[in-house]
């Protein structure tokens, strides 16, 4: 198997971008885009290499994906176009700054103010699996970096807190959920298909809407 990685590079956040090609040859049919990138001097974020950490999110042949979850053999063409995520500022090459996702979670106060002794364990487990990779934001037609919408990357962690929070925290959570998720979600639900952790977003949305919008909170 021979692939040409056509990679969009950029020396720093202020410089012009350019493309550079790298040839990758291997007879390993399970080699991924991450395997190939590890052989280049290109800067990109990586950590677990088994889709458990969300570090290596990028745009591969026009589709946002994790590099470690994209097999080269599954890509029909020889030339593979690799670009950084577009909705975040580029730091260098394929490395982007996803800090805005963390800032949004802080703004929406995604934490438990007091000890938790309630909630649905399945909801909590499912919501805890979010990788905060940003792929859902990349495909979302309603997500803009300067907007109020936090997208599914905010909804998922918020769903855990909504499920677990005590009565005292509800008023603020309700406000934040409306502001950060509900009001701006256009229900395109492109996030469902793109999520590499295959999180059951539908289930979390239904549960969170029921509580924070329709006031059907879990009983204490």
């Amino acid at each position: 198997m021979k692939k040409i990685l056509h990679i969009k590079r950029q020396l720093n956040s202020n410089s012009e971008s350019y493309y550079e090609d790298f040839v990758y040859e291997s007879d390993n049919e399970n080699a991924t885009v991450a395997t190939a990138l590890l052989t280049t001097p290109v800067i990109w974020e990586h950590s677990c290499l088994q889709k458990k950490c969300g570090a290596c999110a990028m745009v591969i042949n026009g589709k946002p994906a994790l590099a470690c979850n994209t097999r080269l053999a599954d890509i029909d063409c020889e030339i593979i176009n690799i670009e950084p995520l577009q909705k975040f500022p580029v730091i260098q090459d394929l490395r982007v700054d996803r800090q805005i996702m963390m800032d949004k979670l802080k703004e929406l106060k995604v934490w438990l103010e007091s000890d938790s002794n309630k909630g649905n364990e399945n909801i909590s487990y499912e919501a805890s699996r979010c990788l905060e990779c940003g792929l859902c934001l990349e495909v979302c037609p309603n997500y803009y970096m300067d907007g109020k919408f936090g997208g599914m990357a905010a909804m998922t962690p918020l769903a855990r807190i909504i499920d677990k929070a005590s009565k005292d925290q509800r008023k603020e959570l309700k406000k934040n959920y409306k502001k950060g998720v509900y009001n701006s979600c256009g229900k395109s639900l492109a996030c469902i298909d793109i999520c590499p952790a295959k999180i059951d977003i539908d289930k979390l949305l239904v549960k969170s809407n029921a509580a924070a919008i329709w006031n059907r909170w879990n009983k204490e």
Partner: protein
Amino acid sequence: MAVYVNILGAGLAGMTAARTLAKNNIHVRLFSVQVSQRAQSNLAEGGLNAALNMMGEDNDINQHFEDTMKGGCYIADPDMVKGLCEGAPSIVDEMKRIGVPWHMEDGHIIQRPFGGQKKRRTCFCMSSTGKILTTASIDDTRKYEDSGLIERYTHHKFAGILVKNNKCIGIKIYDNHEGTYNNYSGPVIICSGGMNGMFPSITTGTTSNTGSVTAMLYNSGVKLSNLEFIQYHPTTVKITDKRMLISEAARGEGGRLCYLDGETKVYFMEDKFGERGNLMPRDVVSKEMAMLNKKTYLDMTGLSNDVWNNRLKDLRDEIIDYLNIDPANELIEVAPGIHYFMGGIKVDINHETNIEGLYAAGECAAAYHGANRLGGNSLLGAIYGGKIAAESIIKALDKYDDNSGLNEFSDDLNENIFINEEEKSKDKVLTGILIKSMGIIRDETSLNLGLCELENIESSNASFEFKSRLNLAKAMIECAINRRESRGAHNRTDYPESNDSYKKPTTVSLVNNEIIIE
């Protein structure tokens, strides 16, 4: 001026230390190369041990203590292990209070059996326990970020410690985005994880845990301990760029190890060790597999639907995804892979190193696991260790309110610190030598050969990081040579028995460029 505590690493140990300090109104700088969602803690699978006695088996803290000491072949500090086991039940409770959905049935936490433990004491969240604990910790840490007590410095990397008169007065940090160095004053807690990057591609760990922090500290006079004890997890599978862990929970829930004699499955661990053979400690199982020298399989075909649906669904999905095999119907070929480093930065019961004001916790520290770690004790050790390191600083806070002395390091900001492109190929040679020399089964001749090959790597004008890695690699092999016995994860064909004169931890330090082993 208020004391700031500098924590390097934002996995479970780092975040726990940070929150423990913040709860006491102490300011924290939390440095990490990537966000906490990328930390190795997320990869821990099977669970966390605590003697809660939820399973009606008269399971008490003394038994957790005894299993941990025995699993580690009696070279861990008993007082430290006692603290760990005593602290475990309240950690389970604290994690529950920050919203961790432990596996429960009828309102009670359920505990699963794990290797080397006589009683069921492993609390779990399917087979994603590390991920679920880390998520809850990230959310709880955010509360203190909002109040300003914890300042996160993501995309920041370790560049050195600032030591004056054998006291750590701060840390030197490189900002990956800005390309700048900064010195920060205050005591330091290192929570940088295991040394996976010394053995790339044959570990289950992340690429972020390069081992360089431990190496650079060693080169700066920090003592290390027990480097010869490297845990090979028995059930890992090769995937493209690494080895993927098949959690010990697979065997805890009924999975069996076998080889094939024609079409007959031979359950060799059960044949040799009886009913609980599959759940012998990891060092024992991996050694048996290495000695067997046959293709080995994990047989999970006898697991019930309840186990697959409610306890190991995530593991099954992962195996199908990566291997295209459904473990409910077919055998999985497995082999040992490097999974954990029992050795690392030497710490005392307060998690302080030989340098005052410098602490270490989590996998980077050699603390609780002796010659072999029991499954379920790493998540526990990370959280407990982070807590103890923070509490030790709180007790000694008066010592750290002097911020003077940092100025003399201010000119020292632009030396040749990090590995360059040219050195990367040399590093590949270095790690190749380690992989070859530090296998499950070792002998003096091949260890000496490895050491000799390391000596031949030219490093006179090398970066600080590469020089340090080379010195760490030599120290690892020297520790393995020095322990002329077999104990836990260290197996010598030339010294196949354990020897009581070695029933103690190894300490290694670099003094005037010379390796000193105590």
